[in-house]
């Protein structure tokens, strides 16, 4: 069965890729399987300079999900290019660089920095970070700001730019259209929902950062809904993410309109999840009457 998918900048052998932040730069999971099996790898968010991230505890478990507030810990874009990418480049797998920042300038600088390496197939613009200059509200919650950062990063990149949308908005379609208009080559959706857990013993939010990002199967229905709605409103391809655990989940995202998917939290429960999904996908597609991945994309919209 043909699992391949062609997206701007990405010739994917199959539609399965680990999500940013859940896979570091790949070395750890390469102890479990050959990374060349993957459709692509999305690396951990890069910022301009090294960041130590938030104090601990940084994760908590919730029913069918988890909260995280890692806080963008990373060694900075230059160290990533010099220390982390060489290992990953040894594999036959497209690398997507997730980039983050606290100002539009920082996003631009990180995008530009990645230009000096030929190891990056695409940039994924993480606009869920708080916009420090504009008082902390996320770049991704205002269509104009989201469009502006997309435009600037697009201009600073020599590879296609996928914009990763936050679900913490009243109207995700409006944001998606704004970034499409601003030149995004594709969308990744969704990032985490903002949540909190309170520790009864200490009587404080469990995470040192108080709030964290809710991910895992708990949020899958929100992700499916948003992919479905946005698919009807934009022309650029969508990479679906949120709660994927099974080949059926992958197909559900494809039907909703995703052209490929990312797997985050499930890696922690099962480090073999990505190769297992790749193995199981053909039988699942066949069971539901599809002969390829591309055939399934958007097929949940038949009544319209």
């Amino acid at each position, binding site marked *: 069965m043909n699992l391949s998918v062609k997206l701007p900048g990405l010739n994917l052998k199959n539609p399965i890729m680990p999500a940013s932040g859940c896979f570091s730069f790949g070395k750890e999971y390469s102890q479990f399987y050959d990374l060349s099996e993957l459709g692509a790898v999305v690396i951990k968010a890069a910022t301009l300079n090294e960041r130590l991230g938030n104090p601990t*505890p940084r994760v908590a478990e919730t029913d069918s999900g988890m909260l995280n507030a890692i806080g963008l810990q990373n060694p900075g874009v230059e160290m990533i290019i010099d220390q982390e990418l060489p290992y990953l480049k040894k594999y036959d797998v497209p690398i997507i660089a997730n980039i983050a920042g606290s100002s539009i300038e920082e996003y631009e600088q990180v995008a530009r920095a990645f230009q000096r390496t030929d190891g990056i197939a695409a940039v994924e613009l993480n606009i869920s970070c708080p916009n420090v200059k504009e008082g902390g509200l996320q770049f991704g919650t205002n269509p104009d700001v989201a469009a502006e950062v997309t435009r600037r990063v697009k201009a600073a990149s020599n590879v296609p730019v996928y914009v990763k949308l936050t679900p913490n908005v009243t109207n995700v379609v409006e944001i998606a259209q704004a970034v499409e208009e601003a030149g995004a080559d594709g969308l990744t959706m969704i990032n985490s929902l903002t949540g909190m857990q309170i520790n009864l013993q200490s009587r404080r939010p469990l995470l040192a950062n108080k709030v964290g990002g809710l991910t895992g199967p708990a949020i899958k229905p929100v992700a499916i809904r948003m992919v479905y709605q946005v698919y009807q409103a934009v022309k650029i391809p969508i990479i679906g993410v949120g709660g994927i655990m099974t080949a059926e989940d992958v197909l559900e995202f494809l039907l909703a309109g995703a052209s490929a998917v990312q797997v985050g939290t499930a890696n922690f429960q099962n480090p073999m999840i990505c190769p297992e999904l790749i193995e199981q996908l053909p039988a699942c597609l066949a069971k539901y009457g599809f002969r390829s991945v591309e055939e399934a994309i958007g097929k949940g919209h038949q009544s319209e």
Partner: protein
Amino acid sequence: MRQLIVPVLEIEEIAKATYQLDLEIEKSLLAQIKPGQFIHIRVNQGSEFMLRRPISVADIDLALNKLTVIFKVFGKGTDVLTHLKTGELIDLLIPLGNGYPIESIEMEHALLVGGGVGVPPLYYLAKSLVEKGIKVTTVIGFQTKDEIFYEQEFAALGEVFVTTDDGSYGTKGYVTDVLQHEELNFDYYFSCGPAPMLKAVKKYLHYFPGYISLEERMGCGIGACYACVVKSADGKDQKKICTDGPVFNATEVMI
């Protein structure tokens, strides 16, 4: 490091809300495991529990292909684990982390200091040290008498002091009270337990070289998610407890 699905040999409540879980694992793998390393246990199938539970290796029996862990029921996940039955399969990542570097240390007498769920890894450590001909003195602390386990097992390997917070058994108070009141001889100390205990032990024994084992909430357990960090002693760098630790030289990290 590997993912393994292994059968439960036995599970038994050995102290209040404290369970010993014996797992069947092939000898060749067991032979590689070092004291201080841990396993990352999947709670059950299904999606309710997305995170595994990190539990230290408490003992290894090569002859019986047996790995032992001891865990305390703390929240929902460990509660589910108590319902395991002999023969049931359980999914592990094993072995994780760096253990106590006992191969590379020259010493004659080791002091082991453990509190609560920090006690289990010290047992396999004690056994390994004694096998190498090193004398072992152990100080273990519990909240109350009902929660004490493995006192006899440690006693079979060397001198043991037990403390309880409420004085219901042994010395009343904390492990540091023993350190203060007993004249203990040792070259190196090895400690594992809750953060406040480790802090107190490190402070109290700061003239001595020692190793401590840290706990933190974990995501992946293998170094990929950055959940489990601790600041290096100079505050400039961050170590991952799951891969750089859980055992650290006491001078290496800021606790």
